[in-house]
């Protein structure tokens, strides 16, 4: 398929792409004003509710988790390494690297890291809702509407149109090389890299040829003729659903800014730390 779009007729599907983009903006805002894992969990919960309204199978989210797992682990380790350890205040648990006593793990660093990881996951999960519920052409029409230059827009649009084509090409290339005895299951990184070159070079050359032909096709369709007078086949409109969602987003944003900005300590991870401490003690 050309995109991740899952066809549907739900209220989320019917939202204007701008509304969905604003939803993502609200999530981003929450992440800016807060680093508290509880707040992040709440936002994640809200996002998952949106997925459920849109009838997107949960497997889509799990798929995403699988893909980002290695990055997440790395992220956890980095967060733990750079968290400043204060022995006088923090509740020490253990060292991540024992014997050499390296990278202390404390309640504080753990809570902070959980919050950070949730943010990372949330960024992607909330963003993915857009392509999953919006047909690619709608996204492009929206870009056109907000005056993204036609050059940029057409580049994005044709790139998206070509995803299935390039996917097929990549698979054919791999099969062609395997038919010549290529093995891809090498452990040795140098051999592995060499094997990948045999796939990468043809893909690059095929893509280059394609982009050349695409440029010719664009020119032959009069692209670039009187750009200012360009007309559009599709037009997008805001509906009642958009208004309702936008109102809700406005309220949530207001609350986030109010509590997060003026009463910073409420949405701070340290509150959660204290909460957990009171349970442990």
């Amino acid at each position, binding site marked *: 398929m050309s995109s991740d779009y899952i066809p549907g007729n739900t209220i989320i599907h019917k939202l204007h792409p701008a509304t969905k983009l604003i939803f993502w903006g609200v999530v981003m805002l929450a992440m800016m004003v807060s680093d508290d894992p509880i707040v992040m969990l709440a936002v994640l919960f809200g996002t998952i509710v949106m997925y459920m309204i849109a009838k997107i199978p949960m497997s889509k989210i799990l798929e995403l988790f699988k893909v980002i797992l290695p990055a997440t682990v790395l992220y956890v380790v980095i967060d733990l390494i750079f968290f400043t350890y204060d022995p006088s205040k923090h509740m020490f648990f253990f060292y991540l690297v024992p014997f050499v006593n390296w990278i202390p793990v404390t309640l504080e660093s753990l809570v902070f890291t959980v919050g950070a990881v949730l943010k990372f996951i949330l960024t992607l999960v909330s963003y993915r809702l857009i392509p999953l519920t919006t047909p690619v052409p709608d996204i492009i029409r929206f870009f056109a509407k907000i005056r993204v230059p036609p050059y940029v827009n057409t580049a994005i649009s044709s790139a998206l149109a070509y995803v299935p084509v390039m996917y097929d090409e990549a698979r054919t290339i791999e099969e062609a090389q395997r038919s010549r005895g290529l093995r891809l299951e090498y452990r040795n990184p140098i051999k592995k890299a060499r094997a990948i070159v045999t796939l990468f070079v043809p893909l690059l050359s095929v893509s280059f040829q394609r982009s050349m032909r695409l440029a010719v096709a664009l020119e032959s369709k009069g692209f670039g*003729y009187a750009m200012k007078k360009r007309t559009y086949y599709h037009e997008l409109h805001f509906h009642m659903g958009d208004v309702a969602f936008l109102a809700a987003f406005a309220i949530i944003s207001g609350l986030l800014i109010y509590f997060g900005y003026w009463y910073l300590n409420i949405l701070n991870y340290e509150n959660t730390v204290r909460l957990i401490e009171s349970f442990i003690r």
Partner: protein
Amino acid sequence: MSDEVILENVTFTYEDGSRPAVSDLSLSVQKGETVVIAGPAGAGKSTVCRMLNGLIPHFFRGVLKGKILVKGYETRNYPISFLAHQAGVLFDDPSSQLICPTVEEEISFGLENYGVPREEMIERVHNSIRDFRLTGYEQRNPHTLSGGEQQLCALASVIAMRPDVLILDEPTSRLDPIGSHQVYNIIKDLSMSRAYTIILVDNKIEEIVELADRLLVLKDGRLIAEGPPRQVLQKESIMKEAGIRPPQVTELFFRIKESPQLGAKLGSEPPITLAEGERQIGSMFNPKVKSRERIHQSDRRCEGDAIIDVKDLWHIYPNGFAAVKGVSLQVAKGEFIGIIGQNGSGKTTLVKHFNGLLKPSRGSVIVDGIDTRTTTTSFLSRKVGLVFQNPDHQLFARSVLKEIEFGPRNLGVPEEEIKERVRESLEAVKLPESILDAQPTSLSTAQKQRVNIASVLAMRTSILVVDEPTTGQDPQMRREIMELLTELNKNGTTVVVITHDMHLVAEYCQRGMVMKNGEMLLEGSTGELFSKPEILAEAYLKPPQITMLSQKLGGPQDILSVDEFFDWLKEEMSHR
């Protein structure tokens, strides 16, 4: 009538070209005329197309001499975006001219660029979708349509812009027979309507003779023949020089003409269509032919053990699509077998089982005694060489030498032997040793295809499977590749070839198998296959013209070539 397209002494040399792609070309095309340009690869046909909408000299740069006028506009003075509105171009490769994510938008794209008001645009898009039989596909990604539909979508998007001149650059050369049929039907309608000035570049002479007002033959950038098709096709030596085969009925006519006894029985005008052939050649038989016998023994297949044994093979892709459904096939050692059928009929899926790229979902594939399920592709690649359709999908090395060495190296062949194998396979594909240092990507298509085959030959497999080796190649190149495979076959290699070209199947394969919707529709010697035109028609295939001629005249059902027809005719006439 006025001239819509005029070329006056045009010479063009590409920026990186060593010789002119087109030299001193003059031609004029009238409004509403359909002109067909034929010629071998590198003749300058595409160059002419590019000139007419300004891609030359504005996009493809080089030295342009002479004058090009399209509807009175001298192309060098106007931008492509302006000229594209006058002359719409359809290219050979359907997928690389589709820009938009949906069919609807693909068709509206050009209109948007020209600022057509929205109401009118919607109407034009709807009309195009209806006229080009794309109803129901409005929201589909054009790249997911079949080849023929993709090409129709691309043509619809060109027509929607309402150009006066249509330039069609080998529009069916990359399509399967159904796709070609769909596209030719539309082109015929467009040509008959006389609403467009059509310049069609095409080498499928049998398909275009009826719609062409004039036929132009180009070679090495020069116009070597021009005139009504019937006249041009009579110039045998010129056709040969350009590597263009006239229709088989025309070939037969000349063959008969050469013969002292039979020649006198024919008129002076050669037939150019099957119907004309039927009338003219048929008039020689009085009374009508009685013999309906076949001339071939029922089997041309080799006797021997099956080197490939496919038993009730099913292949179901992860998305649930059953691409191969219960196919059984035995290929004997030393055979030359053709697999035919439309794109998507499961041919490629089937052959990918021969070297284990795909494993059976059900049933089994035994290659040289080994069950493919129990081994890997890298092991089977010692036994089965699989040559893919597009050489660009496998050429990666910095030199031809490295490219050919790649396979044997993967197999762990000793250094000394690799050298020998490189030399040998280069010789087999008739490429000079001097090419070894060249970069594969810089070669011509024909050379790339040869390097591609050489790189598989170097693996010295006893079975060679070649997927569509002739797509996008000119008639001469097609023949050369088939000759090459025949040569290898004579030396003991078992050859399996996937092709759409019925003429090639008739001429080169011993046996054929027809697939349709994942099932085997028909299997047998080539003579047997073509003697069942009704079943072939189910897969949208038809026998070569000469076979059909014989069948229509009541002659043998399994005539496979002009020579065979002629020999039978001599025999038949000698009894009278």
